[in-house]
């Protein structure tokens, strides 16, 4: 796989660039090739590249100075949180500065009366909940990577989690940020008061994959923990029955705290991995209901009726331990893939829920066509599908086959009215599929928004957009045909 070639003119200036960075952050520049290996990839390990240098700022002022320098020197910047992106969002540029937020990991203020926490971008997702759970609060978005991933990365990817049907993605739980622009100026968006007082740029930068600027501070909403949570496991002899049950539950006005689907292949894999004791079935659903006691009882009773009507079998768990066991298999689904094959890619399309049986059949056909195994887990409540493709990167050509299989799955998701990514982001991985979902006019509009923030292409170049076109600055005029095809960029 080809990566964007480095600009030799920038590489030639490496020493002076490193020296300039050291002036700004004397104790936080990584330059030795062996040390830079730590940053060469994120959680999409098939793409690797060492950055020109890495810099680890300690505060917003250093961030701004680094950015101002890089902008003037024409050196790209790739921001990086914990490097858990599954789409190559934090993949470095060989001719770029990698900006790591590991040392900006302080919680600045906990304000229970206004239900919010203000923090630096390098704080991990799980640390927010840890800081407030003593008072009975938590931070709702809970990506499975939450012990490692950072709030800066969560904001850039608009990350979700198991509970986002009910409690929303990052964007619905973010109140404000301090954000540094390519010219080094810092803007404040949102805050503790509701409303933007202008265009909703906070909403725009959330999920912008590090392309518009750098988050140096965030204020997030915290929620009071529901007094009661219960878990149910429903098993089905057919995928359409499970799909019908999901539709019936949602159609009945129930919004479960979580509702996860696993297919036969996944059930088998996790059983041989950590034996959660799942029933032998074509599909299972694991469902959390939370709220006040009577709310939960009401939801559970209605869910039980729907499960029965869809010919499913039901188990319930009330105690924390029993609940944890029910969830153990689902939570180990990624890890269990290691039993099936040395390598795995996790796809992330969202589909209208009613299309689930059709899409799973389509994936089974594609699995035969490409000769690779695939297990399916599904955030059933919100239609976010995670096909896990098993392969062996050591085998000649198998990575390419796995990637083509993945691309075919995403094309199928778009064909049924869905999207390329529900929570992992486009990054480098799905960049060349953007045209499957968006027209030229759609992409032009997004690209002009990128130019409105970053006309010089300073931040995270080569990500998200399939072709790069120059930003036409004069009078902000849009010029058709100004697209410069970049044959050097890797194809999916």
């Amino acid at each position, binding site marked *: 796989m080809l990566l964007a070639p480095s600009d030799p003119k920038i590489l030639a200036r490496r020493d002076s660039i490193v020296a300039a960075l050291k002036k700004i952050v004397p104790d936080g520049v990584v330059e030795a090739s062996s040390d830079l290996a730590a940053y060469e990839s994120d959680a999409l390990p098939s793409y690797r590249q060492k950055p020109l240098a890495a810099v680890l700022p300690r505060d917003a002022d250093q961030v701004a100075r680094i950015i101002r320098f890089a902008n003037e020197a024409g050196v790209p910047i790739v921001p990086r949180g914990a490097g858990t992106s599954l789409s190559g969002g934090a993949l470095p540029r060989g001719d770029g500065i990698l900006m790591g937020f590991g040392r900006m990991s302080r919680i600045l203020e906990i304000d*229970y*009366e*206004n*239900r919010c926490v203000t923090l630096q971008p390098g704080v991990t997702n799980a640390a927010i909940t840890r800081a407030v759970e003593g008072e009975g609060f938590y931070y709702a978005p809970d990506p499975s990577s939450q012990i490692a991933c950072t709030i800066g990365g969560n904001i850039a990817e608009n990350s*979700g989690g198991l509970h986002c049907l009910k409690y929303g*993605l990052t*964007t619905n739980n973010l109140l404000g940020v301090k954000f540094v622009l390519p010219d080094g100026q810092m*803007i*404040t968006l949102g*805050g*503790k*008061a*509701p*409303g*933007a*007082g202008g*265009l*909703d*740029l906070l*909403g*725009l930068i*959330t*999920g*912008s994959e590090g392309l518009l600027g750098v988050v140096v501070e965030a204020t997030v909403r915290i929620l*009071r923990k529901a*007094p009661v949570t219960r878990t149910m496991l429903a098993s089905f002899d057919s995928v359409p029955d499970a799909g019908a049950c999901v*539709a019936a539950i*949602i159609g009945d006005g129930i*919004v479960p705290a979580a509702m996860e689907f696993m297919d036969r292949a996944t059930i088998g894999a996790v059983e041989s991995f950590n034996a959660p004791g799942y029933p032998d079935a074509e599909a299972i659903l694991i469902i959390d209901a939370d*709220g*006040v*006691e*009577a*709310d939960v009882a*009401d939801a559970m009773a209605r869910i039980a009726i729907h499960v029965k009507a869809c010919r499913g079998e039901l188990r319930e768990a009330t105690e924390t331990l029993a609940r944890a066991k029910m969830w153990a298999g689902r939570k180990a689904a990624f890890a269990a893939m290691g039993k099936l094959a040395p390598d795995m890619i996790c796809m992330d399309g*969202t589909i*209208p*829920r*009613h299309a689930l049986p059709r899409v799973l059949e389509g994936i089974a056909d594609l699995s035969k066509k490409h000769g690779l195994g695939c297990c399916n887990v599904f955030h059933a409540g*919100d239609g976010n599908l995670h096909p896990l493709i098993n392969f062996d990167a050591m085998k000649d050509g198998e990575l390419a086959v796995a990637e083509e299989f993945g691309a075919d799955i995403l094309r199928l998701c778009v064909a049924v009215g*869905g*999207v390329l990514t*529900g*929570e992992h*982001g486009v990054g480098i991985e*799905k960049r060349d599929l*953007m045209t499957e*979902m*968006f*027209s030229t*006019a*759609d992409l*032009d*509009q*997004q690209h002009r*928004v990128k130019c*409105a*923030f970053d006309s010089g292409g300073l931040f995270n170049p080569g990500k998200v957009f399939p072709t790069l076109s120059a930003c036409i600055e004069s009078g*902000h*005029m849009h010029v058709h045909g100004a697209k410069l095809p970049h044959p050097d960029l890797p194809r999916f």
Partner: protein
Amino acid sequence: MTRVASENEIVDYVRAARESRTPFEIVAAGTRRGAGRPMGKLPVLDVAGVSGIVEYQPEELIVTARPGTGLAELKAVLAQKNQCLGFDPVDWTLFGGAPDFSKNGTLGGAVSADASGSGRLRHGPPRDSLLGFRAVNGFGEAFRGGAKVVKNVTGFDLPKLMCGAFGTLAVMSELTFRVYPRPSARTTLILRGQAPEAGFAALRAIWKSALEPSGLAYIPGAADFPGLGDVGEGAALIRLEAAARPLQEKIAAARLLVGPAEELEAGETVFARVGEGSLFRDNDLDVWRVTVPPTQAARVAKAINAALWWGDWAGGLLWIGAREEDAPRIRALAAQAGGHAMLLRAPAARRAALGLYAPQPPALAAVTASVRAAFDPLGLFNPGRF
């Protein structure tokens, strides 16, 4: 005035306006036309005809409708399936003097003006519900942003920008929302005789709980909403919703937190009026919507010292009726508290001088202008309105 009824007709109109460099005003029902900077006499593009429900899939929690669709019509269709819009769209009846008032506000108008009522507390403002849209930009190109599924992070989240843009970015032609189940039971509790500090503190106690309230308003004694009865110094209103049995549990839990609060029969009507700003209909006060961190509500309200005001969103929003000379103080107090003061209604000269919001710091103003230019470089759409 030109009426259009489809996206294609919008495209044709925008292309012609672009050719001739003729800015225009975008109007649907016109119920919010009084908000924002006056734009002078401009040609009017009437988009009310771009209406109708395109697709409604209750099990997918999604509805797609054209922006000219009446709010009342859409609410009725959703109610048939026991669903509702999450952002509690409201018509601002305080513009009652306008000739168009008899009309029912549209979906597109509510989104563009970011008009949400008390229920916003539970499921958020329009930006938390708008999943996707189609629109025509200032290049005369039809484009889409977002998608028609409840979870999507593909590309930039352009739907967010449409909410509260007052029509300055694009002419919308289709909107897709996430919808929510309508709770089967709902009630309003009232605590009477509350000074602002105590009243807002009671609201926050509920807001910080796990009771998922769908309305938390503070009404001072001077704000005479019909149906409230005698509230003494002021009243805290708490709206709770759930299925029937859980609702009883929530009421009991709320009383444990704030003390003996009685159920208020007229609760629904009062909350509707609170969101509409209806008490301003028959006076000529300037009307401000001031947002502040909830803990600042009582202090800011006191410092503004308005003749007529009330609070919503657990204190996050203050509706203020003020006089001309109060304007600088209101803007300054909102800014000090970390909030915003939106001038919703005032005579044209004052709206021209003060704008909808206070001027932004230079760096933010510059990005905002660039983003606008990315959609509408010639400034064709509602120029200067906001």
